[in-house]
């Protein structure tokens, strides 16, 4: 509005002359196209880096919990069975998966399993390495959590994480030093969070271990 209108009626006050609807649509269409174009351009430009980051994230996590495997297979859960090659029609992104790691000599190290459950503040999600035949743990890494900084967030740090190298499932969270192979010492002041980690692993193990064993036996459970 111009200064001349500062106190009077602004131009659009009289019933404004109707803007033809084709102009409205055209404007919006143009804006939409422009937006779409811009977004797609930036998307294409950033996609490689973003994908790389994500892949790296998964990779490093799997590497960490499986003790530096030489290679690994991604197994998909389809129709209650683990398979390396899901049927053609299935959308891979919709399927649950685990990562089965091998040594350089192609013997199975174990499987990296992701799982999550509510902790003290919100869902804790983690990945852990499981030796499927004996049911011992290889390692654990917290992927996402909202636990209290300074308390619950100790679950993603050593020494807590290092306690998952070797214990047998099902785990038992204890407050003092472990006395059996199944014992896992929880964090004082964050008992809830550390217990949640224990529970997540136990629940996930009881679900995935039979599936993995079946896969390794090459049949259905």
């Amino acid at each position, binding site marked *: *509005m*111009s*200064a001349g209108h*500062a106190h009077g009626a602004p131009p*659009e006050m009289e019933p*404004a002359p109707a*803007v033809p609807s084709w*102009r*409205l649509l055209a*404007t*919006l269409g143009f*804006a*939409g196209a*422009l*937006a779409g174009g*811009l*977004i797609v351009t*930036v*998307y294409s430009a*950033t996609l490689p*880096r*973003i994908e790389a*980051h994500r892949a790296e*994230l998964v990779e490093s996590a799997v590497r960490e919990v499986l003790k530096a495997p030489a290679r690994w297979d991604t197994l998909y859960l389809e129709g209650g069975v683990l398979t390396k090659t899901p049927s053609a029609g299935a959308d891979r992104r919709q399927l649950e998966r685990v990562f089965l790691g091998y040594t350089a000599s192609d013997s199975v190290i174990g499987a990296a399993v992701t799982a999550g459950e509510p902790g003290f503040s919100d869902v804790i999600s983690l990945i852990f390495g499981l030796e499927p035949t004996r049911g011992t743990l290889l390692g654990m890494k917290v992927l*996402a959590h909202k636990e*209290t*900084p*300074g*308390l619950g967030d100790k679950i993603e740090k050593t020494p807590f994480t290092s306690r998952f190298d070797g214990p047998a499932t099902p785990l038992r969270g204890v407050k003092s030093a472990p006395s059996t192979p199944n014992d896992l010492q929880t964090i004082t002041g964050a008992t809830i969070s550390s217990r949640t980690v224990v529970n997540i692993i136990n629940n996930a193990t009881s679900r995935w271990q039979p599936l993995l064993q079946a896969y390794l036996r090459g049949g259905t459970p």
Partner: protein
Amino acid sequence: MSDQVPATFDDFLRGVWRENPVVVQMLGLCPTLAVTNSVANGLAMAMATAFVLLGSNLLVSSLKKWIPHEVRITSYVLIIATFVTIADMLLEAAVPVVHKQLGPFVALIVVNCIILGRAEAFASRQSVKRSLLDALGTAAGFTLVLVLLSAVRELLGTGALLGIDLLGPRFEPWVIMVLPPGGFLTLGVVMLVLGWHAKRSTGRANGEGAA
């Protein structure tokens, strides 16, 4: 109030202090409180917001002649959403850790009232130059508050600033500061101080001592 009015430094300053989007206009509170538990997050959020603000103010003010009145809000929203999407992707590509920390709040810039507010109240009526200054000022004001809040919260809550330990290992962190109540509390204290200051200055203006 139009192109005849030349761009002045005041266009910038106004947003920084006198019409500060957060502490004066009380807009954009959600991101302000949600991301200020560390300076890094606060800064990233401020930058992303500034980017969207500048971009949308620029586009809105340069396209204002072409956008029919009836669809202007819709167009603004489209423009803003575009810049937000871009900011979101750029952040994820550049600093994935921070992007993860900010969670959905980058996307939420779309509904940050500050941006639509500036687009509608200023950019849609002013010259490109003034709109840019206005956007810069508003962004600076927003950044100022975010950095101030996040500095207080991070320092007290962890003893560190930008992750650098400042208060020494024996400092007992005030965990509350990085928790939700601490967010409300910190901004609350800022508002109390501002309120107290305002009361004192009006008290003086009236020739009375501060009671």
